[in-house]
């Protein structure tokens, strides 16, 4: 058996794959966060709550409307996205002229309120949500047994990240978005309804978080606490990637997932700190983050 630093190669490959799966969630979440930050200059502290909301909506759809995973995959992000759009219209749009810190503080309060409400109604132990029938079972890859659902998560999240990236980099709508990031006033002067675009963008970011939530529901316990635990790590991902850089967020998401996976093999005690350590090092060497534009 081939060994790498005292760990069998096969096991290592398995762990790398697992890291990639984790990275998929980081990437999906940081993608939404980066889009919101890139255009709205708002650190969306409620992103974790919106992720949780996605998972909960999926659960509620199943429990009360009998709508299963595949339906939820479409509906839940839509619902979370619409809720996000409403929040943007009602509240966030009033904060754009102020210091960006107020956006951070508002979404912080929002996160507390959403999570608190769900904890109040549903407790914190969580709700059951099973892997969809079509994706149960596992496949032997030789070096590890990969549950089919995990395979789906990697493929789907990669597809979504690429699709979102393409939509933003290659379409007319994306061109509006990118242009509005640079100079919203001028884009408005060209006749584009930028306020609507902003509302849509926040909705899109929230929907991406919701989508990640639905995808997480069969793997992670659907609990009101699921978002607050992951959000800080995702912040670190976005800071390392370079705030506002969409590509940076996605690439860093996968990369840090892998780093974390490796740490779990070689020094598991540090696996929750490793991301912050990387962040500190990156900030020392490249204050703007790995993919950040301005120095």
């Amino acid at each position, binding site marked *: 058996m081939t060994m790498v630093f005292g760990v069998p190669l096969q096991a290592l490959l398995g762990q790398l794959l*697992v890291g990639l799966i984790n990275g998929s969630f980081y990437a999906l979440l940081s993608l939404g966060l980066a889009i919101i930050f890139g255009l709205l200059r708002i650190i969306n502290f409620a992103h974790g709550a919106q992720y949780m909301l996605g998972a909960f909506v999926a659960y509620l759809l199943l429990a009360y409307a009998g709508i299963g995973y595949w339906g939820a995959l479409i509906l839940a992000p839509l619902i979370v996205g619409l809720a996000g759009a409403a929040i943007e219209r009602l509240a966030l749009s009033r904060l754009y002229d102020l210091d960006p810190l107020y956006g951070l503080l508002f979404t912080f309060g929002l996160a507390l309120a959403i999570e608190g409400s769900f904890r109040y109604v549903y407790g914190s132990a969580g709700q*059951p949500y099973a892997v969809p029938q079509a994706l149960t079972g*596992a496949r032997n890859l030789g070096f590890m047994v990969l549950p089919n659902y995990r395979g789906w998560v990697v493929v789907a999240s990669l597809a979504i990240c690429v699709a979102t990236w393409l939509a933003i980099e290659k379409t007319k709508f994306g061109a509006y978005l990118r242009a509005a990031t640079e100079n919203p006033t001028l884009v408005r002067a060209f006749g584009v309804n930028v306020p609507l675009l902003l509302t849509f963008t926040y909705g899109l970011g929230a929907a991406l978080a919701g989508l990640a939530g639905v995808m997480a529901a069969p*793997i992670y316990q659907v609990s009101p606490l699921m978002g607050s*635990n992951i959000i800080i790590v995702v912040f670190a991902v976005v800071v390392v990637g370079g705030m506002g850089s969409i590509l940076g967020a996605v690439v860093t998401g996968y990369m840090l997932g892998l780093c974390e996976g490796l740490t779990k093999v070689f020094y598991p005690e540090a696996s929750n700190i490793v991301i912050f350590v990387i962040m500190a090092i990156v900030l020392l060497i490249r204050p703007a983050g790995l993919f950040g534009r301005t120095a």
Partner: protein
Amino acid sequence: QVSDNKVKIGILNDQSGVYADFGGKWSYEAAKMAVEDFGGKVLDMPIEVVTADHQNKPDIASNIARQWYDTGQVDAIMELTTSSVALAVQGLSKEKKKINLVTGAATTELTGKQCSPYGFHWAYDTNALAVGTGGALVKAGGDSWFFLTADYAFGYSLEAQTTKFLTSNGGKVVGSVRHPLSNADFSSFLLQAQSSGAKVIGLANAGLDTANAIKQASEFGIVAGGQRLAALLFTLAEVHGLGLEAAQGLSLTEGFYWDRDDASRAFGKRFFERTKRMPNMIQAGTYSGVTHYLKAIARAGTDDTEKVAEAMRAMPVDDVFAKGGIVAKNGRMIHDMYLMEVKKPEESKQPWDYFKVLATVPGDQAYIKPSESGCPLAQ
């Protein structure tokens, strides 16, 4: 001889935070049930139950406890979920010469170095969980273990105590891995556990961490592959939240199960009618603790702390929760524990029909001998 002409019990626990499902507002319900069952009066004085949500903050808990004792005419505080709160309130109760009875927290410190003459620890502790799950499971054939341990003091002590019992019963530990607290993804650790070939994977963690580990173990087909999962701290409420599909085959230890005998079934049914859920050991333990406290007042003929505490120790505990339970000098209520296995979905005949009792662990084996607990009162 009752102070302020009434007996007032405070139920202080987490009702909105991470441990809200452990005992939560349902422990308050259980306490009220106990008072009603007792007849609402003791020594002809009315009994009152108050409650507060400490939000998992020891300072809020300590503040409320002080106010209750000093100005709120509260005679005893019970439940006390999470160890930092339980220890803080026990310290305070000792200073104020008031009774506190812990059902929600697990740490053996409560009846160890930090024990109090007026402090009681009722439903379970880490040692009992370790003996129940570790010791009894080895006897049932699960003799090689791999631990998934939460990387902080609570996890270490669960792991260490379990290890002690399983090795003394002829089992061995083939490996262990420490995972960060609030770790969402366990697949990496589960892969390591899987390839270790251990017969039992012990989950030395709590709450959402345990739930996630179990859910993901089922996804990776660990139980289906012949390995056994043993959760060291997990209750009925959490199995309910996980669903049988994911939880089937899991072993765990509780001090109570509603479907054990006729008395517990009757109690469970009444509790369910009030709360739409079956009681776990913390809620049933709170019922038992309140009842025992009231009995002790009746026996002592006063609510004077010293005398009531003495009476509580003097009487055996015989109720729906415990049969022949003994209250030791260090405050530990010693009673039987049950090693359970979670049923397969097809075995479950009705809602909340989740457990099979695999083994009963006698109280004197489950709990640390008072003389060895490190509590000065029991030397």
